[in-house]
């Protein structure tokens, strides 16, 4: 099966900023890709280009289509959840279901109803009367009832409390995701998604600075909490980033054999959040 998203040499410049600078990556069916980057790194621009909401230079195919010129066709197979503020306040829950059912050939209203019946959302409520958590549930109900091949999530849990955030990802994994589908997520709450991701993309100042599967990350990257007397020895292995935690030095290595490092302190695979900070800061240093 061919890649769901294929980005090759895509660039996008605004008046003053190079939002995307020769970006290339792929996302395959059955993968959950995390697109992680600091504010203003180009995440949103990348998502918008994939969703056909912005123009770009370079070669970009989503499900074999050109998103910018074929957005309406592409959206039959792509779902998108942005942060909660995106459903219009005047829309009633039943109208939302009715509208999507009317315009989307792959929407199954009974699935949305089934999902909504598990919540306390009233069908006659307007979106503006719902809590943030309920709006996300409504969004999920709409999206999960669509038999789509790509789901794009842009900060989907922004402003939600921990219970809703957990529930959101659990529902996504248990009721939605399968080997045919691709999910692309951007979020700042890296800790919550790192266990569900299969692939990791770091983007910084418009460039992809890391592009690995989670297995590759575990193989390639080592976080070493260095024994106080081994700092100099550890530095000889050329960490790409180091920092102080509670008086101990923590170093990050790429492609260095774990055995050599294990003698110098405690090793482990870095968390995505730590790896992110190390990669971005290390590149800046």
């Amino acid at each position, binding site marked *: 099966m061919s890649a769901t998203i294929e980005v090759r040499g895509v660039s996008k410049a605004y008046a003053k900023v190079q939002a995307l600078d020769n970006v290339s990556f792929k996302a395959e069916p059955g993968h959950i890709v995390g697109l992680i980057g600091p504010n203003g790194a180009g995440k949103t621009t990348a998502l918008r280009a994939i*969703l056909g*909401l912005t123009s770009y230079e370079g070669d970009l195919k989503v499900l074999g289509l050109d998103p910018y010129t074929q*957005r309406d*066709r592409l*959206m039959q197979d792509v779902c998108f959840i*942005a942060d909660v*503020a*995106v459903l*219009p306040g005047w829309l009633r829950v039943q109208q939302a279901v009715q509208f999507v059912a009317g315009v989307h*050939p792959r929407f199954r209203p009974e699935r949305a109803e089934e999902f909504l019946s598990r919540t306390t959302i009233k069908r006659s409520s307007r979106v503006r009367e719902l809590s943030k958590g309920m709006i996300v549930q409504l969004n999920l109900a709409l999206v999960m009832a669509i038999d789509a091949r790509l789901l794009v999530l842009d900060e989907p849990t922004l402003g939600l409390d921990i219970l809703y955030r957990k529930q959101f990802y659990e529902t996504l994994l248990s009721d939605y995701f399968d080997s045919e589908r691709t999910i692309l997520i951007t979020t700042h709450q890296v800790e919550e998604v790192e266990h569900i991701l299969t692939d990791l993309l770091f983007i910084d100042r418009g460039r992809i600075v890391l592009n690995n599967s989670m297995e590759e990350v575990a193989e390639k990257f080592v976080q070493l909490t260095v024994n106080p007397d081994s700092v100099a020895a550890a530095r000889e292995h050329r960490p790409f980033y180091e920092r102080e935690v509670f008086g101990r030095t923590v170093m990050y290595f790429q492609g260095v054999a774990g055995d050599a490092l294990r003698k110098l302190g405690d090793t482990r695979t870095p968390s995505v959040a730590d790896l992110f900070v190390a990669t971005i800061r290390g590149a800046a240093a």
Partner: protein
Amino acid sequence: MSTMPLLVRREFWEHRAFVIAPAIVAAFWLLLALLLGIFGEFDVADLRTVMQNHPDLEQRAPDAVAGLLVSLTIPFAIVMAVVAVFYLLDSLYADRRDRSVLFWKSLPVSDQSTVLSKLATVGLALPALTFAAALATTLLVAFIACVRLSIEGIHIWHLLWNPAVWLAAHGIFLYALVAAVLWYLPLFAYLLLVSASAGRAVMLWAVLPPLGLMLVEKIIFRTDYVADLIGNRIAGWIPLAFDTGHRSEHAVVIDGERIPFSAHIGDVIDPAAYFGSAGLWLGLVAAAVLTYAAIMVRRHRSDV
């Protein structure tokens, strides 16, 4: 295109003024009719004398009734025109302001369908609703009037409930609605384009460019072509679409234009002059160009 009715329905969900505005006009007329019907004082004897002294009343009544009915319908059209202007300015702007455009664009609906659905709302749905509201209101008002006069012993049922009169009055109204909508299409499309383009202050963006052009022209060339063009686009259809009162002695005056009325629809309307006018067809061409521009802006604006 099979989704078009649903897209138009969506507009009615969002804009409740579509229903509330004609309901208010209808309520106003009905309340007025009821108040006059209950508390109004008529000099019944005087009315009887008038009816007896005018043996040609039977012939002249249809004209008067038709005129009365047409007068009742006009406020509906004016209120709906105001609603339409505010709606159009809002239609491609509000969802960008509250970012819900991201939701709408995440559905498989083309930007062309979206923009055309707004135009269909104003060009088809609102006129149909206006017509239905006016028809229902005139029926009720006429019924109230008949009941009141019957109580006084004056029976005008046969004068009022003359199918030919109703056909004429509402025929004229329907014709006027169609003529006005077609004439105003370029204005509607212009408002859509402004709504799709403006970053904020849509009303200013709609009003300032033509006003600026008028002013610049006045100062530099001391002429008024732009002002005349705009004035013609607002009221120019009336003298074209109607035979302005040469054959009919009765008329309703709007915008300084005399709209004649008569129980004979043929005496009043002048479709040949209207549909043969260059203004109509040039306007439709302009409407097509402006609508296409609105679709393009809607599609290519990336800073949603």
